[in-house]
Structures are given as C-alpha cells and as structure tokens.
C-alpha cells in the first residue's frame, strides 16, 4: 500500500464480504425450498428469500467495485484520495440503505421491479452515495495522473450511476416498464460493469505480471470497445417478447452473438499477460482468481449466454432454468470472481502483511468455481428437460417442475459447496495466521 487513503478500501471489502455471506446463505435456503417447498413458507416465503439473495448480490458487488476503485485509483493517480472522510460517509449511507432494505424485506417492505425492490428512500440514498463517490474519485483523478485504467474505470462508474436513474422511472405500461428496466439491468451487467471488470483486470495484470503498461492499455481499450459495440445493441436480446418491435429479434440475435467477443478477449488477455510476464508475484491466489474470473466469465456470460440468445432458440428457452443456469455462472464468473480477485490482491497490502492463507484461498476458489460450474450443469439439464416438456409438449408448469426434482437436489448439493467455499474465503481473508510465504512485502510492488 503506497497511499494511506487506500485504507478505506478495507472497510468496503469487509462490508461487501458480509453481504456476500448473506447472499450465499439465502441462496442455499432458496435452493432448499426448491426441494422442500414447505420449509419456512409461512415465516419467510420464497419471494422474500429470493429478493434478499439477489439484492445482496448486487449491493455487495457494487461495494466491491467502490472498494476496488478506492484502492486502485490513488495508486494510478499517484496521489491520496480527494477525501477519505467522504468515502467513509458514503459507506455509512450505503450500509444504512442496504441494512434497512434487508430488514425491511423481512417485514415485507419493498416495492417496484425485480432487483429494484428497494424502497424509494433507499434508492435516493444510493443516488446520494453514488454522487459522493463520483465526486470523490473524479477529483482524485483530475488532480493526479490520468491513465487508461482510470479513464475506463471512471467511465464505467459514471455509467452505473447514470443508468441507475432509470430505477426511479416506473410506467404503468408493463411493456414500457420492462423496456426501461433493462436500461438498468442489461446496460449494467453487459455494458458499464464490463468496463469496471476490464479495468480492474488490467490493473491486476499490470501489478501481477509486470507487463508494460503500454501493452495493457491497448488491450484494455480493445476489450472495452468490443464490450460496448456488442453490448449496447445486444440489449435487443431482452426485447424479443415484451411488446417491442420485431426488428429487435435480428438486432438482438446478431449483436448478442458478438457479446462473446469481449469475454473471449479477456481470457486471451489475462493468459497472454501471465505468459509474457516476467514477474513471479508472490500472491498466487489473486492470480488464480483473476485467471478464473476471465475464464468463468467467458463460459458463463459468453458461452452460456450464447446458448439461448438467438431469438429462435430463446423463443423456447426464455424464462426457463436455462436462464437460471446462465445467470448463475455469468454473475459468478464475471463479477463475483472479479471482486474476490481484487480483494485477494488488496487485502495483504491493506493489512500490511504477506499474502497469507494462500492455500486456503486457493482451495476456496476451486470449491466455489467447482460448485458453481456443477450448479450450472444441473440447471442446464433441468432447463433442457423443462423446455421440451413445457414449451414443446405443452405440459403444465408445476407438473414439469415435479419431474425436475432430481436436478434441484443436485443443485442444492453444489450450493452447499459454494457456501463452504465462501466461508473458507472469508476466513482466509480475515483470520490472522502465520505466513506461508516469507518474501518481503516490498518485492510485491511492481516497477512498471
């Protein structure tokens, strides 16, 4: 850690990991309700469990992004943060908002649209926190060195805030509602979040491999260009069946097929950088997470996304377990693994110790990655059967669900493995332990 103000990242990562724990816990409970439907059905119905599961996912990923930005921007800009106090104030607002939302959900206080169930006061709090954040990091960058990484990261973060404003617009016309809902949901995860992802990966490659900044920067711009060129019009793959014009079937099919390209480029980028890199960085766990991130994102977002993105295929698979399979691996690969990668990299530096508990961290990677992959396979099988029985043969929804029970048991099993992996990760991050590697911290700073 070169700059004192980078320390604020620690608080962000800590809160993010608490929400991560709540996300996977509610996830495994939801998976249990799938096979034992009467479980908690009076006390905590499935819709609330699922709401906490998805909302805590989104919020912890965003907290991770904020933490990552506060960690890497001082290093990139070569100066202290504009205001660490504002950064803490922003965190307090977000904690109150997220905590208030979760507790409120348990008492059935929620509103609005899927993933955007936060009560209005929480949404406004998020906007205020986002403004504080953007002011803080933008001032830091403006006063310091400007790099490709900070340019792209800031553009991504500004985009997140801008598109979130559509969460406040909720027309009574369901078709219009859905059209603008995707302005938040799709333009986040398949648009501006990818800018954040690419810039954080670029930062990590720079630090972990010792490749020239010039090379990393060119890759970064190429990747984010591919991401936005394909991803913006790729929104069309959500506009097939909600009342929007027929031309979206063509635009959506073509551009979302191209959405595989940026994810493929990220895989090539990370592996080529590691091969070319001259540096043997001691933080092997962070490197594993970074490589795992690009690889799993390629399969989850790229391959599994492509599986059901053509409109003729999507006509049959839309809203089945195929979607659930894709959603799980895409979010895990692209954004969960990304956050765990930067946390794995930053934590030893923030705590001014050696990269520690590496073996446990790497075991947790394989548990979570293996669990999520297995979950994706089981949900894919379930989805294929569901598509055939329900969409081709026309059997009733619940009759079909009853026939999928076997796969839901397998999914529950893989969910338990993911939870254990997550617990292990958190343990490896926080519980002090004698270092396994003994190289001095000074060596971990790259020369550039």
């Amino acid at each position, binding site marked *: 850690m070169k700059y004192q103000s980078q320390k604020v990242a620690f608080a962000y990562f800590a809160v993010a990991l608490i929400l991560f724990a709540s996300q996977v816990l509610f996830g495994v409970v939801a998976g249990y309700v799938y096979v034992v*439907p009467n479980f908690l059905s009076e006390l905590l119905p499935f*819709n609330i469990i699922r709401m906490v599961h998805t909302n805590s996912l989104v919020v912890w990923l965003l907290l991770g992004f904020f933490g990552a930005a506060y960690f890497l921007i001082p290093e990139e800009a070569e100066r202290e943060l504009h205001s660490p106090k504002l950064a803490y104030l922003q965190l307090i607002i977000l904690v109150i908002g997220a905590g208030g939302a979760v507790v409120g959900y348990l008492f059935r206080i929620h509103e609005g649209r899927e993933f955007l169930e936060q009560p209005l006061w929480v949404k406004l709090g998020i906007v205020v926190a986002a403004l504080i954040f953007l002011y803080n990091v933008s001032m830091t960058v403006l006063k310091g060195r400007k790099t490709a990484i900070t340019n792209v990261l800031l553009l991504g973060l500004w985009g997140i805030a801008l598109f979130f404003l559509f969460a406040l617009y909720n027309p009574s*016309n369901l*078709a219009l509602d859905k059209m603008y809902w995707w302005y938040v949901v799709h333009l986040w995860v398949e648009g501006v979040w990818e800018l954040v992802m690419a810039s954080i990966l670029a930062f990590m490659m720079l630090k972990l491999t010792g490749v020239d900044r010039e090379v990393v920067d060119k890759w970064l711009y190429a990747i984010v260009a591919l991401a936005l*060129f394909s991803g913006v019009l790729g929104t069309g793959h959500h506009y097939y*069946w909600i009342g929007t014009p027929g031309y979206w079937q063509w635009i959506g099919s073509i551009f979302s097929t191209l959405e595989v390209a940026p994810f493929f480029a990220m895989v090539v980028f990370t592996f080529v950088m590691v091969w070319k890199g001259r540096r043997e960085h001691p933080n092997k766990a962070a490197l594993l997470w970074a490589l795992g991130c690009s690889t799993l994102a390629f399969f989850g977002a790229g391959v599994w996304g492509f599986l059901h993105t053509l409109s003729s295929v999507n006509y049959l698979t*839309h809203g*089945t377990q195929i979607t659930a399979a894709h959603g799980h691996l895409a979010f895990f690969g692209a954004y969960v693994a990304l956050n765990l990668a930067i946390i794995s990299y930053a934590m030893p530096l923030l705590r001014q110790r050696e990269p520690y508990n590496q073996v446990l961290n790497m075991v947790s990677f394989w548990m979570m990655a293996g669990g999520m992959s297995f979950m994706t396979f089981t949900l894919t099988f379930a989805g294929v059967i569901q598509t055939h029985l329900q969409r*081709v043969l026309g059997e009733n929804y619940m009759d079909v669900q009853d026939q999928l029970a076997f796969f839901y048991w397998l999914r529950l099993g893989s969910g338990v493995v993911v939870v254990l992996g997550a617990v292990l990760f958190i343990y490896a991050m926080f519980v002090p332990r004698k270092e396994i590697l003994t190289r001095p911290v000074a060596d971990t700073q790259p020369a550039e």
Partner: protein
Amino acid sequence: MSDMMTKSRARNIFYGGSLFFFAIFLALTVHSHLYVVNTSTDSAGLTESVANGKHVWEKHACINCHTILGEGAYFAPELGNVWVRYGGPDDAEGAREALKAWMKAQPTGIEGRRQMPNFNLSEKELDDLVNFFEWVSRIDTQGWPPNEAG
C-alpha cells in the same frame, strides 16, 4: 497487438464507436417507445384499475416467484398468459372467478407442494390484479409464449 494500433487510436475507436452504437440504440428506443404505446399495447385500455393491479403485483413482489413475459423468478408459473390459460378470452367471468378463488385459497399447505402466501387482498385489489393480467395477455408479444403452459 500490432504496432498499427497505437494506444490513442484504440482509445479513439473505443470512444467514437461507443457513441455511435449508443446513438443508434437511443434512436431505436424512441421508435420502440412509440411502437409500444401506439401499436403493441392497448394504451386506451390501460385503465386506473389495470395500473392499480400492476401496483398490487409489485407491492407483493409476485415477480420473485413467478415470471411475467418470461422475466422474474422461475419458481412459479408464467403469468403473462395466465388469463388465456384460465380461458379468459372465451369466458371472462369464469376466468375471473377462478383466478380470484385460487388466490384466496392460498396457501394450500399440501406437503411437498410449492406454497403461495396468502396476501389478504381485498376484492378490489383482486379485481385490479385480474384486470392487469387480462391487459398484459393482450400485449403483442410476437407469439410468445409458445403455448398455454407459459
């Protein structure tokens, strides 16, 4: 990457290209917005009751079990066409009564069967919700879902 592609060239392609694609997207959004309002949905039939029904739908987070037009959770049946599945186009009164009776009878408590909570909706809320489902079923979704099963 080749030396032909300098860093500033890559940067300019990124910014210029992104603006280009975003401009197209915005133009198509404007067109789609007008298409939804004028062609694919029944704007005239979007009564206060339908709007209230949508509000009831949101207030109880129905989308976190059900899907509507294929989006939502995948735990409970698709409701975009529930009006059609219940025979609404042929027998509106029968479908309305059946849907309301179903919601009032929840939860079934049958062991091993997925449970829907009872939201204690008033008669008016139930009617509004049914009107909302009826309105949604008339959205021109280009033939989706493939059959009544949703």
